[in-house]
């Protein structure tokens, strides 16, 4: 009924057109599988949960001048001023802003540096006891930082005695049980974990440390300053517009810039990935369209080349449905071989991409779904020309063409 054998035999005897189509389908399958996988991986990356109310947070940088200025005191004054602006929930002077692409990191151990123990890399934030409330993240165990924890110092070697850590960092350092109240080490500085944060993405979303962060209750005064502010929902834009006026009125010798929402910082940080996703989507669309057009065109070409043959088949008793079925089966056979070759190519390409660009390994499900999609697309592309072929009159068999 499906004429598999004669169709296969005919294809084997007239290979060139079939091979061209087969190659196009194989290449499409290989590229689309990998591109779809990369797109999905990037979308998951772009849409990952950060634990932060990104729409309500913003930051600004400030350069403050003045020979006799007491930086620590001025920071306290500025923080109080910022917290008093209507619509502000909380504000902190902070060394780095999550999701921004700029920050600090270090390695932490379970034992002091003279003893061997596994080392965990993590990013860290330094701020006063308002930091957790400003970030708007959730504490799942232990306690928040308090005023008495906060160390104000300009000495870079000094570290506070306590810290908050993220759940991810905690789980890596203490896979067997709770680390709350236990001590970790930064070189020889002992740091006691007093609280565990459910989720807080660090400054680098692409980094392997993105889920591992510490918050130190420490203020290190500097003339180059960074502040993070959380506002009530929908109040952020209004507060951002007031920042310069409020701060310059209090102390004019300073420059304020990079007033940006956290979502904007994140968008800038992931701009390349966003662009890549869009480009890959365009690539996939173009490639699928070209392949569909190729199948459509080749089938039309085959039909025009075989007008007499189709007419003869009709004259010999083929129903219209048999002619349509013939082209669908012929096309499906070519596509299936193309998809099998393309799937092998996709897995090979996935392995190469993994080795060369540290991409995750291609999931077989993407190859299967892409293959099914390509076959389905090819069936849709061929159905129009096949119907046209079925409409060829059997009387063409007796004409000279």
């Amino acid at each position, binding site marked *: 009924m499906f004429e598999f054998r*004669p169709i296969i035999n005919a294809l084997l005897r007239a290979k060139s057109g079939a091979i061209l189509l087969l190659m196009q389908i194989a290449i499409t399958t290989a590229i689309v599988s990998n591109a779809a996988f990369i797109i999905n991986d990037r979308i998951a990356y772009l849409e990952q949960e950060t634990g932060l109310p990104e729409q309500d947070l913003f930051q600004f940088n400030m350069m403050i001048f003045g020979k006799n200025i007491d930086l620590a005191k001025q920071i306290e004054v500025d923080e109080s001023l910022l917290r008093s602006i209507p619509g502000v929930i909380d504000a902190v002077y902070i060394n780095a802003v999550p999701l921004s692409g700029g920050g600090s990191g270090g390695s932490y151990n379970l034992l002091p540096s003279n003893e061997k123990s596994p080392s965990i890399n993590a990013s860290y934030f330094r701020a006063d006891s308002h930091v957790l409330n400003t970030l708007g993240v959730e504490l799942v165990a232990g306690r928040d930082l308090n005023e008495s924890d906060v160390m104000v110092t300009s000495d870079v070697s000094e570290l506070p005695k306590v810290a908050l850590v993220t759940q991810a960092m905690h789980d890596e350092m203490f896979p067997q049980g709770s680390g709350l109240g236990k001590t970790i080490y930064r070189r020889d500085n002992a740091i006691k974990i007093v609280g565990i944060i459910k989720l807080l993405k660090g400054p680098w979303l692409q980094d392997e440390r993105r889920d591992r962060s510490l918050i130190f209750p420490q203020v290190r005064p500097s003339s180059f300053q960074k502040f993070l502010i959380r506002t009530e929902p929908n109040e952020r834009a209004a507060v951002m517009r007031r920042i310069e006026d409020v701060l310059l009125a209090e102390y004019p010798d300073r420059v304020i810039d990079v007033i940006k929402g956290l979502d904007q910082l994140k968008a800038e940080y992931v701009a390349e990935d966003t662009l890549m996703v869009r480009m890959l989507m365009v690539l996939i669309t173009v490639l699928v369209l070209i392949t569909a057009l190729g199948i459509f065109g080749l089938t039309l070409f085959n039909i025009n080349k075989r007008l007499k043959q189709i007419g003869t088949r009709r004259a010999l008793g083929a129903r219209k449905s048999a002619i349509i079925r013939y082209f669908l089966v012929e096309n499906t056979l070519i596509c299936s071989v193309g998809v099998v070759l393309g799937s092998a190519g996709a897995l090979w390409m996935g392995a190469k991409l993994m080795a060369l660009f540290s991409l995750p390994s291609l999931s077989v499900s993407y190859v299967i779904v892409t293959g099914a999609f390509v076959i389905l697309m090819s069936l849709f592309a061929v159905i129009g020309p096949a119907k046209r072929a079925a409409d060829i009159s*059997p009387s063409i068999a007796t004409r000279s063409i």
Partner: protein
Amino acid sequence: MLNMNGISKVYQTEMVQTHALRDFDLQVNEGEFIAVTGPSGSGKTTFLNIAGVLEPFTQGQYLLDGVDIGKLNDNQRADIRNQKIGYIFQGFNLIPDLNLYENVEVPLRYRGIKAAERKRRIESSLEQVGLASRAKHLPQQLSGGQQQRVAIARALAGKPRFLLADEPTGNLDSLMARQVMELLEQINRDGATIVMVTHDPELARRAPRNIQVVDGQIADFSLYQGNPAAVVGA
């Protein structure tokens, strides 16, 4: 077997209306061998197409083996072509990508005949035309006469009661033409009804009954020979 009454066929374009057949009447009895002749453009091919259920007619009634062809839908017409009619075309119309076996198999597949029966019939019909040993060859590896014999084998494999031949020797040299004609005569002796369109008067004379088509109508062959003025509407 074949009964055409008042068949007309009009081809209509935007500008021109062409009457290919006019009030065409023909009765062919079971087992007859008829040669259809006539000048180019007389309507022979149109008659053949209608007789072979390859195209519809505009007016009239056509009964083939008692079946009113004008009342059939497209699928039923395809089935009639497949089950009752065998075709032999001037250009052989073999499918170039299929070998001889597969070519003969084409109409049998459309009839849904099982593989073993198909094999038996294909081998038998190729044997009948003397090409059983070349079943795996492609059409282009054969001479014109051999290709026409394959086309005959394809027509025979379906065991049709009605065989239509369109200039079956038109593309062959005289020796090959004689061989093909002898084959058709043998098939007719075996019981098949044959209608053959030909330009060749010598071949036409070998058929027991001749009809001539002129200007879309049948002229009596004997009358035509004796009295050209009585041709049309005879």
